[in-house]
């Protein structure tokens, strides 16, 4: 069993990393493709970048008020998510902005308030902080403070986030927790192409401003059979990817794949079945699914790349212990990045990778 599983994991990991063979194999995870079919109909093999491109293409085609803007999106963007869109829809709908994140956010909020569907791209989530005031003080509060007269629900801010192997301090951050602290915003993080397309379309069509964080390491390495038609995956609903009764493992984005591998290891080495949940929607998050799962399993482990203190795992842990206290067999475990700036040379030691999560799971089980 060990050999086959290891071989499967190895060959899957080799296939995923075929394009990376010339580079140092710095991926700390194995990608688990989503085999679900959200809707019937034709599918195409797409990677996450192409799925996101497809979602924006559909939006620009069907919503005449939609526009896409950001730094370098005209030629396709640094990750090519906007590839071909300016050619198809014209310069007045897909255009570059100067290098000014605060301006981009404010401008997007204004457009959305005036009724447009505005998709603003921030080139890296690490650069979103000049826009933080606009998003937290303007976008989040617009509807509330105007008594419902105005809103910028048509705004979706997209940004690549997360560790990529060599990003260092400013190309690797996961800032989702900062935005969950601003009521009025929605924060969503996909784990792969199928989820990305459906969730992005939901965010764009949602009547509240959404922050859509795209784990950049998955743009190319994650490929699935994605339906070509339009479909939405509801915001606020978590997905149970694996069912089990021993422990509930919760994550989002890249970390979901780490936990899936941990669940495999647990099944093989400890003989237990863990339930793996992809939160997908960070704000609002699916309390019901998570708490029901923890009630069943009695143990909960949350993992994320962002630092421990005030990472979103803290919110999950607080809620789970409050709601499921009498069902818990062990304290809620959080396996996260260190409370340090995302390091340059220490990246492999910084990330909550498979072995570290597995080790925490063992402690959780043996509590």
């Amino acid at each position, binding site marked *: 069993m060990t050999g086959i599983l290891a071989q499967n994991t190895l060959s899957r990991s080799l296939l995923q990393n075929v394009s990376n063979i010339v*580079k*140092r194999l710095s991926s700390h995870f194995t990608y688990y493709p989503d085999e679900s079919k959200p809707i019937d109909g034709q599918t195409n093999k797409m990677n996450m970048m192409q799925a996101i491109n497809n979602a924006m293409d559909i939006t620009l085609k069907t919503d005449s008020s939609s526009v896409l803007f950001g*730094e*370098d999106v005209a*030629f396709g963007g640094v990750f090519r998510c906007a590839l071909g869109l300016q050619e198809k829809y014209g310069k007045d709908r897909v255009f*570059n902005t*100067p*290098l*000014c994140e*605060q*301006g981009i956010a404010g401008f997007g909020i204004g457009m959305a308030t005036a009724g447009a569907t505005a998709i603003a791209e921030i080139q890296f989530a*690490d*650069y979103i*902080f*000049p826009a933080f005031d606009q998003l937290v003080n303007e976008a989040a509060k617009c509807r509330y403070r105007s008594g419902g007269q105005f809103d910028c629900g048509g705004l979706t801010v997209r940004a690549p986030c997360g560790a990529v*192997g*060599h*990003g*260092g*301090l*400013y*190309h690797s951050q996961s800032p989702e927790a900062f935005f969950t602290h601003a009521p009025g915003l929605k924060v969503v993080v996909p784990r792969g192409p199928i989820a990305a397309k459906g969730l992005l379309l939901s965010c764009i069509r949602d009547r509240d401003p959404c922050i859509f964080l795209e784990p950049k390491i998955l743009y190319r390495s994650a490929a699935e059979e994605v339906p070509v038609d339009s479909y939405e995956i509801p915001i606020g609903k978590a997905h149970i990817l694996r069912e089990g009764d021993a422990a509930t493992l919760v994550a989002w984005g890249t970390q979901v794949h780490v936990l899936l591998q941990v669940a495999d290891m647990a099944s093989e080495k400890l003989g237990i079945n863990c339930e793996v949940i992809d939160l997908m929607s960070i704000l609002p998050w699916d309390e019901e699914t998570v708490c029901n799962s923890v009630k069943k399993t009695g143990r909960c482990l949350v993992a994320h790349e962002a*630092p*421990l*203190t005030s990472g979103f795992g803290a919110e999950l842990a607080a809620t789970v212990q409050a709601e499921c206290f009498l069902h818990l067999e062990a304290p809620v*475990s*959080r*396996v*996260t*990045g*260190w*409370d*340090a*700036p995302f*390091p*340059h*040379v*220490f990246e492999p*030691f*910084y*990330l*909550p990778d498979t072995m*570290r999560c597995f*080790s*925490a799971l063992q*402690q959780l089980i043996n509590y």
Partner: protein
Amino acid sequence: MSKLIPSAAKLLSGATISKSTTPAVIASKTSYSTKSESTFEIKPYKLHKLEKGPATSATLTAEDALQLYEKLAVLRRIETASGNLYKEKIIRGFCHLYSGQEAVAVGMRAALRDVDSVITAYRCHGWTHLMGVSVLGVLSELTGRRTGCSRGKGGSMHLYGRNFYGGNGIVGAQVPLGAGLAFAHKYRGDGGVAFALYGDGAANQGQLFEAYNMAKLWDLPCVFVCENNGYGMGTSVDRSSASTEYYARGDYIPGIWVDGMDVMATREATRYAIEYCTSGKGPLVMEMETYRYSGHSMSDPGTSYRTRDEVQEVRQTRDPITSFKEKILASDLVTADQLKEIDTRVRKEVDEATKQAKSEAEVGLEELSGDIYYNNLEHVIRGIHPGAPLQHVEVVARN
């Protein structure tokens, strides 16, 4: 490098070009230049709200010429070495090369005094070396080793040195810091000037205008220097900026446009700027028009948004090193042999540093939780392992 005896110089200088060997070193084949100094014309500056600009001609001694040339050569060689190390995957992450822009840093540094401070963005390898960090300190920071000037913890974008505040990754964020540095100079009364450098892309960041206002309001000795290399990543200046007159963007702050490919122009302009700021007239904006041969970073080939012909044309007609070389050779300030000797020596120095930068070790793992705080009250750094936190380590001595 021997100097001419002044009396000998007088004997030898004249209308005819002649080379003579020094009697002191019998076996040397080196020829010595005939002139000890020469004057060069500088392309006219463009001025914004200034009556009088920097000097339009510069005098260089033979020694100046050799020093400037050497600095230009070292910077070019460091960038070439960095590019190669990146391609070998020994430098990871990001690497933004300065090749083509050397005259800005070298000329400015030649005019800077020890008391002045500099802060720039991520295209900073050359500046770091000029501000006193050894070639090894620069290269091993790029390779992430302990001999790096930031102990390998910062990488290409976060190099620091004496009076050199980096090395900053977030575009434009360094400019308000520059205004703060200027305030410190003024407060301390040390007569120093702060130079805050940024690019044409950063010129559109709101925080720059906040810094301009504070500097002018409080008469800070701050020089805002826009290194306009024509492109913000892949976006040409015309496509990003409503006004490409970056020297005039400070509006109420006077500005100067300088030919950034001419090391003497940048030197004279900086001399002027220092004089201006230290006479209590407040801040200044300078635009150094320059060019970068490489793409924005090592992940950008630099050819999808501009033609190869354009890059070639600049290399052939406006290269800062070649054009400076031609000038100083033509005016007999230096000989070709002297320059060749510098080239060889520089190459050797950088090659040796490169080798060492490859073989040094990284700092120890304990530094992952090192120097996060000056004084970490909690003593531990929590994270991955529940119940097994890291110890916060104070690496650099606290004073």
